C-alpha cells in the first residue's frame, strides 16, 4: 500500500479502525434482548404489489417473515408489538436493482494493484497484450463475500426506503458476481439473500489509445466473445481430459474460465450495459451471439435511458431491463459557449420517459440507482419518470416485485405476501407524495424507525444563499472548496460542495439564528464518508469546522459576489 501521509489517509485508517471496532461490538446492539420479534401493523393501507391494494388491513411480522396479511380477522400473536396503522401505508421494501451499496471499496492488495482495469499500466503492471492476459477480469470477486455492514451507505439507503439491493463489484470488464442483499443484519453474512444472481459486464475500454488491450469498444467486444468461448471450451476440454488423461495434452488452468464456469452453474443473469438506442440494439445482437451451444447464459439490459426509441424491439426479445435512474443532465461545469446537439437535448428531455415506454411495450423492468450518491435523489428520479407518464403503481412494481422477479428472488421477497421476507416500508402517505415521510422500515423483520434530524427552531439571521469560498488547511496544504448554497425560507439548506476532490450534493442542512450545519457524502480515497460542515455566519463571512469521522479541521468562508445578494431573511 502506498504510504502517502495525509489527513484523508488518516481518515481511511480511522474508518478501518472504526469498522474493526464495529465488527467487534456489533452483536451488542442485538444482544440487548429487547428487540421485538413479532409485529402487527393494524389498520393500515397495504400495497402488496402482488395483489390489489388493501384498506384498513393488517400485516403480521414474525421472526423475519410475513406471517399474515389480511383484514380485521387476522389473528395477532399475543406478544406482538402492535403498531397503529391509521394514516400509514405499507409497501414492500424498495429494491435497488443495481448498485455497489453493501460493498465497501476494496483496500488495494499489494500484489494485485486493487481492481484490475483493462489497459493496465497502473500499479506497475505491464499493459495487457491480448485476451489471454485476461485484462479487467475478476469474476471470482463476489458481492456476497465482500458485503459488509461497515458500508455506511447501508443505513442511508435503508433510510430512503430501500430494504434490498442487488450489489455488484465494480471495475474491469468482468467485475465479479452480484448478490441480492438485505440492508440490515448483525453479521455480514446476514446481508446476503442470494448469491450469485447476476454477472455484470462493462463494455467500455478503461484507458485510451495504446493503454493496453483492449483500448477500443470493438476490442472489448472481441475480448468478451473470446472469454465466453474459452469458458465453454475449457469446460468441455477439461471434462474430456478427465475422462482420459493419458495421451492428450492437459488444458491450461485459467482462473477466469474456472470462476465464470462455476458462477454460470448457478444461472445468474448477465447484465449487459446499454444506454443509447445504438447500444440497446447492439445488446440485442450480443444476447443472440452469446447463446453458443449449451450456454447457460440469460441476460438483462442495464441502463436503457434511451429505451423510448426502441421499446418494441426490446419487448420482442423479452429481455428484462434495469433502468438507470441517474438521468442525463447538462454538465454542471460545462463550457457555457458549448451548445449541445439536438440529439443530446432530446435525450436529456426524454430519458425519464423510457420507463413509461417500456411499460407500454410490456417490457419487464426495474430501477437501478447506480451513479446516484445521495439516496434521497433515488425516489425523486423515479418521480420524474412518473411525471413523464409512468403509472405510479407500475413505478412501485419496478421498485419491488419486478426486480425480485428479474433477479430470481421473487419466491422470497419483493411483495407483501404470507411467508415472504418481512421487508416493508411504512410511510404516512403516497410514496411519491412531496410531503410524504417514511416512518419506519422493516428489514428481515427488524424494525428501523426514521428519526427526524434534530435542529434548532430559531429563524436564520440572514440568507446564506450564494456562492461561498471556504478555505482550510489539511496536512497536504492549503485547500479551497466552493460551496453553492440555497436557503429556503425555513432555513433548510441545499446545494453543492466542490473542490479538487470532486463535487457533492448537500444531503441535509439548515441555518438557524447565526448557526448553520450541512452534510455531504463523498468518496474519500475510495471510501464514502459523511463530511459535516458546521459553524456560525455573519453577513458575508462564515467560520466553523469540517468533520469527517473523528477528524476535524477549521475553515473560514467568504461570499465574494456578495454585493449583489440581498441580506436579511429569505426572499
Amino acid at each position, binding site marked *: 500500500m502506498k504510504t502517502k501521509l495525509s489527513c484523508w489517509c488518516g481518515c481511511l485508517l480511522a474508518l478501518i479502525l472504526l469498522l474493526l471496532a464495529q465488527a467487534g461490538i456489533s452483536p451488542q446492539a442485538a444482544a440487548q434482548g429487547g428487540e421485538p420479534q413479532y409485529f402487527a401493523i393494524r389498520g393500515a393501507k397495504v400495497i402488496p404489489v402482488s395483489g390489489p391494494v388493501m384498506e384498513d388491513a393488517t400485516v403480521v411480522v414474525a421472526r423475519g417473515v410475513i406471517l399474515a396479511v389480511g383484514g380485521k380477522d387476522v389473528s395477532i400473536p399475543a406478544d406482538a408489538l402492535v403498531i397503529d396503522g391509521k394514516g400509514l401505508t405499507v409497501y414492500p421494501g424498495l429494491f435497488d436493482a443495481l448498485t455497489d451499496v453493501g460493498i465497501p471499496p476494496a483496500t488495494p492488495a499489494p500484489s494485485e494493484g486493487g481492481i484490475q482495469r483493462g489497459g493496465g499500466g497502473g500499479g506497475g503492471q505491464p499493459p495487457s497484450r491480448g485476451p489471454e492476459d485476461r485484462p479487467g477480469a475478476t469474476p471470482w470477486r463476489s458481492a456476497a463475500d465482500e458485503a459488509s455492514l461497515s458500508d455506511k451507505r447501508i443505513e442511508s439507503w435503508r433510510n430512503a426506503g430501500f430494504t434490498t439491493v442487488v450489489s455488484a463489484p465494480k471495475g474491469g470488464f468482468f467485475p465479479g458476481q452480484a448478490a441480492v442483499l438485505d440492508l440490515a443484519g448483525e453479521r455480514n453474512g446476514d446481508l446476503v439473500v442470494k448469491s450469485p444472481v447476476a454477472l455484470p459486464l462493462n463494455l467500455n475500454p478503461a484507458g485510451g489509445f495504446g493503454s493496453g488491450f483492449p483500448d477500443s469498444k470493438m476490442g472489448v467486444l472481441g475480448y468478451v466473445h473470446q472469454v465466453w468461448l474459452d469458458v465453454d471450451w475449457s469446460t468441455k476440454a477439461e471434462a474430456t481430459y478427465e475422462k482420459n488423461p493419458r495421451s492428450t495434452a492437459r488444458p491450461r488452468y485459467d482462473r477466469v474460465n474456472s470462476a465464470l464456469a462455476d458462477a454460470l452453474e448457478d444461472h445468474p443473469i448477465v447484465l449487459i450495459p446499454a444506454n443509447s438506442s445504438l447500444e440497446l440494439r447492439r445488446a440485442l445482437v450480443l444476447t443472440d451471439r452469446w447463446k453458443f451451444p449449451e450456454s447457460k447464459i440469460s441476460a438483462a439490459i442495464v441502463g436503457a435511458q434511451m429505451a423510448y426509441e426502441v421499446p418494441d424491439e426490446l419487448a420482442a426479445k423479452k429481455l428484462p431491463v434495469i433502468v438507470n435512474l441517474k438521468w442525463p443532465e447538462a454538465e454542471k461545469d460545462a463550457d457555457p459557449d458549448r451548445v449541445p446537439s439536438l440529439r*443530446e437535448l432530446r435525450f436529456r428531455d426524454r430519458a425519464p420517459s423510457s420507463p413509461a415506454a417500456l411499460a407500454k411495450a410490456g417490457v419487464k423492468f426495474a430501477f437501478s440507482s447506480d451513479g446516484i450518491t445521495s439516496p434521497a435523489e433515488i425516489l425523486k428520479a423515479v418521480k420524474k419518470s412518473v411525471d413523464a407518464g409512468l403509472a405510479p403503481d407500475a413505478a412501485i412494481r419496478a421498485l419491488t416485485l419486478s426486480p425480485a422477479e428479474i433477479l430470481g428472488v421473487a419466491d422470497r421477497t419483493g411483495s407483501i405476501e404470507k411467508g415472504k421476507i418481512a421487508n416493508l416500508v411504512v410511510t404516512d402517505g403516497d410514496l411519491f407524495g412531496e410531503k410524504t415521510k417514511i416512518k419506519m422500515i422493516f428489514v428481515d423483520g427488524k424494525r428501523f424507525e426514521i428519526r427526524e434530524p434534530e435542529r434548532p427552531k430559531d429563524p436564520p439571521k440572514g440568507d446564506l444563499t450564494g456562492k461561498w469560498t471556504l478555505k482550510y488547511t489539511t496536512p497536504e496544504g492549503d485547500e479551497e472548496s466552493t460551496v453553492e448554497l440555497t436557503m429556503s425560507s425555513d432555513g433548510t439548506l441545499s446545494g453543492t460542495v466542490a473542490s479538487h476532490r470532486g463535487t457533492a450534493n448537500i444531503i441535509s442542512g439548515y441555518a438557524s439564528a447565526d448557526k448553520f450545519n450541512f452534510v455531504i457524502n463523498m468518496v474519500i480515497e475510495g471510501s464514502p464518508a459523511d463530511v459535516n460542515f458546521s459553524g456560525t455566519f455573519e453577513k458575508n463571512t462564515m467560520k466553523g469546522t469540517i468533520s469527517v469521522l473523528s477528524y476535524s479541521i477549521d475553515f473560514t468562508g467568504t461570499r465574494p459576489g456578495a454585493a449583489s445578494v440581498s441580506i436579511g431573511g429569505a426572499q
Partner: protein
Amino acid sequence: VKASSMLLRSLAAASVFAAACIAAFAATPPDAPVILIQNATVLTVTHGTIEHGSVLIKDGKIAEVGASIKAPSGAQIIDGTGLFVSPGIIDCHSHIAVDGSVNEGSISVSSIANIAEVLDSDDISIYRDLAGGVTTANILHGSANSIGGQTIVIKLRWGQPAAKLPFEGAIPGIKFALGENPKRSNFSIPGRERRYPASRMGVEETIRGAFTEARDYKNAWDTYNKRTAAGEKNLTPPRRDLRLDPLVEVLEGKRYVHSHCYREDEILMLLRVAKEFGFKVRTFQHVLEGYKVADEIAAAGAGASTFSDWWAYKVEAYDAIPYNAALMTRRGVLVSINSDDAEEATHLNQEAAKCIKYGGLSRDEALKLVTLNPAIQLGIDKRVGSIDAGKDADLVIYNHDPLSAYAVVQKTLIDGRIYFDRQKDIAARAGLEKEKKTLLDKEKAAAKKPEEKKAEKPGEAKKPEEKKPEEKKKPEDMATMPQAGTDGGAQ
C-alpha cells in the same frame, strides 16, 4: 475556389441542421416508390452519357435506362431538366460510422476487433457524406497495427439502425498497415514500453508470424474435422481463436485484405508475403508510391485506392505525385480515389475530376475512380457502380456536371429511396432550430430554483416569450429524426 467554398459552406449548413427529410423514413423503410427521372444528363459510366435521358427505378433497382421512358402509372416523376445523374459515389476507405476508436491500438495484430460490431448509425458523418453523394463506404479499422481489425462495406442508409447498414453480401475485409503507422514511428507514450514492431522489418515479421500461426491453426482444425468425420470420439476440438479466424478466412479467400501503405518497398514486401502464404491483396490503400511499382501491382491483380493530391504530411508520403492515379490506370491497375476522411468524402467527385487535369484520364475514367472501380475492388460491382438496368438504384442527382467544381448534390438515392434531399433539408432547418431552442429554454426553466420561479410569477414580465405548446410529434418520427450537429461540419 469560390464555388467549392460555397459548396463546402452549403454542406456545412446542411450538416448543422441535418436534414429532416429523413423523418419520412421510419425505422423500417417504406416500400420503395416507383420513380422516373426524366430529361436529365445520365452519366452511366459503363455505356456513355445520355443527354436528356431517363432512369426508371422500381423495387429499389434500376429498371430501365434510356433516352425516353414512358412513365408507369403512379410513378413519382423527378424532372431532371438541367440536372446530372451519376451512380452513387463509393468511398473505398472511410472511418465514419464507428462507435468509439477506429483503432484497437494496443496490439500489433488486432484482428479480434471487428468494425462491423461497432457501427454507429447515429454518426452525423453518414448524413454529411450522403449530402456529398456518397452511397457506399468501405469502413476500415485504423492503421495502427500491422494486421488491424475486421472491416465492412456499408450503405449510407441514414436513419436506419446499425444492423441495416451493411452492404448485403459484400465480402468482409481486414485492414493491414505497413510503414510508419504500425511501427509507431510518430507515436510513443512517455514512460511506456514501445510496442513491437518498431521497424519495417518488424512489420513484415509480424504479418509473417501471424499467418504462420493462422496456418497451424487451420491445420489443427482441418485435422480435427477429418478425424471427427472419420468417427473418432472424445476428441478435444482446438480452442477457437477469434484473432486467427479472420486470417484463416483470408487464406481461404473469404475475406479481402485492404492494406494501408505508402512506399514501393513495403508494397513489394506485402506482395511477396502474400504469395508465400497463398493469399491475395485485394487493395493497396493510399499507395502513394504505387506509380513506381504499378506493373507489379497489376500483375498481382491487386487494386489501388489512392488520394488525388494529398501528401507530404509525413516522410513516407514525400514521393507522392498527383499523376499517381492516372499512371497506375495506364499500367493496368484498377484504381480508385478514396477519402480516408469524413469531410474529404463529401467532394470525392471533385477529387476524381483532378485526375483529368493530372494525367489526362477521360471523363468516364475519372468518374469510374469513385464509382465502378471501387465497386469492383470491393466485389460489389454486380450491384452498384454504374447506371445499368438491374443494378441497385444508388444514384446522385447534381445541379451541374459532377466533374465540375460547381456541382452541388440535390438528391441522393440508395435502393431507390431518397435519403438526402437538399430542398427538404433546407426546409426543415427552421423547425429543428426551434425545437432546439424550446428544449434549451425548458432546461433553463427547470434549472431555476422553485423560489425564483415564485418570485417571477407576479410580473410574468421576465418570461422570454410566450411559448405555445409544441405540437406533439409522433414518437416514430422522433426516433428517426437526425440529430442536429453543433459545429460547421468540416472537421
